[in-house]
């Protein structure tokens, strides 16, 4: 049993199931992210933890106490919203001290705590300003301080960086993680940005259509996706149809070109038709990348800054993409030239065919 436990949580809106059979156990001080596309149920789950939505079934327990039916103002859960939700009529200090006033703390103690938090979020001396006098990033920091002021048992963040520009987003997410580590507060973070989830979290919960697809550390999620949805949603991916040639030997045929998986194919994988997932960064141009090889014409070269992405045709309008690090002295074959792409057996992840893949960043055929 963890510090925050969600057991069999379900939420239905009429006939529509927004969240189904959600089970999660988060440890004290853990940073957990809910990652998934829009409408996958991640925000609904967060709102159930906050108490803004009532689960249709299941239970939510914090530190051994059942809070499933408790109203939101009696949960001691801090919440940071995408739209900041600072009270426009109050100063920064009043916003941060609001929850403490509700708890009837002495004025001097409130002032002290507000000053501490202003220091923590890097805005000392800005307590007398109004929210409209701050930038978006500063407003979100104040919102974070306000949520932390009440010393919540669980901190919930609902896409808190979505309204900010890219640079501030990166800076602020580092600050959020640093503050969370400093205070050791159990945190649930909702995002549809995989980079955010992977860089911030101790564990990531990948969701799709109201269900959990996989729970794991960022490395597990990225390197060992449990389903084709996770494989295609997290990171960039080549998803290719393959024919099983010899299941026991792990031999597969991809557009007539034979490759081998690292392990024998078992269960559903040993059927005739499967999918293979290949990360672009796990392949190399030439024959040095490993024993598995594809040959085809170079169709396109894209310069992406630190990396260069190449697309190699495999026939039937299918292609595979691979990345190589940018180098000022890098020489690449001309577009149209037939090239060899190689990769190790371990890079080839075999998935059962028929599972729907999220096309977000997938480089599927």
């Amino acid at each position: 049993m963890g510090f925050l436990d969600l057991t069999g949580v379900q939420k239905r809106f009429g006939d529509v199931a927004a969240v189904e059979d959600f089970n999660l156990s988060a440890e004290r001080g853990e940073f957990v992210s809910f990652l998934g596309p829009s409408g996958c149920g991640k925000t609904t789950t967060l709102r159930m933890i906050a108490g803004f939505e009532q689960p249709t079934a299941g239970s939510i327990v914090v530190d051994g106490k059942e809070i499933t039916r408790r109203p939101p103002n009696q949960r001691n859960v801090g919440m940071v919203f995408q739209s900041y939700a600072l009270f426009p009529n109050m100063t920064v200090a009043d916003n941060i001290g609001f929850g403490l006033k509700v708890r009837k703390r002495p004025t001097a103690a409130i002032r002290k705590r507000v000053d501490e938090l202003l220091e923590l979020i890097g805005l000392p001396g800005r307590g007398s300003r109004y929210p409209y006098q701050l930038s978006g990033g500063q407003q979100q920091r104040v919102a974070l301080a306000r949520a932390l002021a009440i010393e919540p048992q669980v901190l919930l963040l609902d896409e808190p960086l979505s309204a900010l520009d890219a640079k501030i987003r990166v800076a602020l997410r580092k600050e959020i993680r640093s503050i969370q580590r400093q205070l050791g507060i159990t945190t649930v973070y909702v995002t549809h940005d995989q980079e955010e989830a992977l860089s911030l979290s101790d564990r990531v919960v990948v969701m799709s259509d109201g269900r959990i697809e996989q729970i794991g550390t960022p490395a597990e999620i990225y390197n060992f996706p449990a389903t084709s949805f996770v494989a295609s949603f997290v990171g960039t991916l080549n998803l290719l149809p393959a024919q099983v040639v010899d299941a026991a030997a792990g031999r597969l045929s991809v557009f007539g070109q034979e490759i081998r998986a690292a392990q024998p194919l078992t269960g559903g994988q040993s059927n005739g038709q499967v999918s293979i997932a290949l990360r672009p960064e796990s392949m190399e141009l030439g024959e040095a990348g490993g024993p598995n090889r594809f040959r085809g014409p170079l169709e396109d070269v894209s310069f992406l800054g630190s990396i260069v992405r190449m697309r190699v045709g495999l026939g039937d309008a299918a292609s595979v993409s691979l990345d190589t690090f940018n180098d000022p002295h890098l020489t690449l074959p001309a577009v149209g030239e037939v090239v060899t792409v190689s990769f190790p057996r371990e890079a080839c992840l075999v998935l059962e065919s028929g599972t729907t893949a999220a096309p977000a960043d997938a480089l599927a055929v």
Partner: protein
Amino acid sequence: MSTATGAPFGPLGVMRSWLRLRSGPRRRGFGSPIAWVIFLIGAIYFLVPLWATFLHSIKTRPDPLLAYRQVFADPKFLGGLGYSFVVGVLTIVISLLIIVPTAYWVRLKVPRLRPVVEFVTLMPFVVPPVVLAFGLIRIYGGGSPITLASTDFGLNVLLVGAYVILSFPYMYRAVDTGLAAIDVRTLTEAAQSLGSGWTRILWRVIFPNLRTALLSGAFLTLAIVIGEYTIAQILARNEAFGPYLSLLGRNQPYQPASVSLISFALTWLAMGAIAFLGRGSRSRVQVAGAR
């Protein structure tokens, strides 16, 4: 997310937004000539009758300000104005206590009922004031379980009640416009997550962010109550300002013109108070948005 700031409300707000030309960037200096032409035509339309009324009010000889002196010397003028003002303030307070929580709850919890509530608040436009007044007397008259129409205090209660109903269309629209300008749901949830109950949310979060809207609704209500004649004539026993104005118009040649101008000046003072008290709130009603 960026939420719309307080929409212009009332003549001053509308005038400001007209001069700013609603679409396109804000112009510096004196605005566009077309806007000024429209403004001047509007100003002439309103000011010429006022000027004519003023000229009529100072026709008394040898003292041109005699009508004004007589009006201020008449105890019924200040008495009627004071009575209507007190009734107006009570109406505003009760109306706000009914309308704000209702409009807030409808927006937050049952938005599909909004058209129904809007329809109900429009009823005073459908039911004539005379029907409303006689209806109240009939229901709360002799033989009724709650008899209010037989005492002065009871009639005052009925008068305030009638005006509260009369204020619904103006007050509801003002409050609803104010609520539309703030992210009610998120602000409520933010306050709840910080431990706040409903009373504190309404009092500390919702009411202060509706300041301009509430003032607009309040002054519209005040202006209506002070000038209202039919209900006051039936329920206020000639103590109110509306019946006093009517009585004056029947018996005096110049005083009605002076009283009209004085009441007009008071209305403009009230509008000025809206602009003064509501200044700065436009930019404060920003819930979110990267700058």
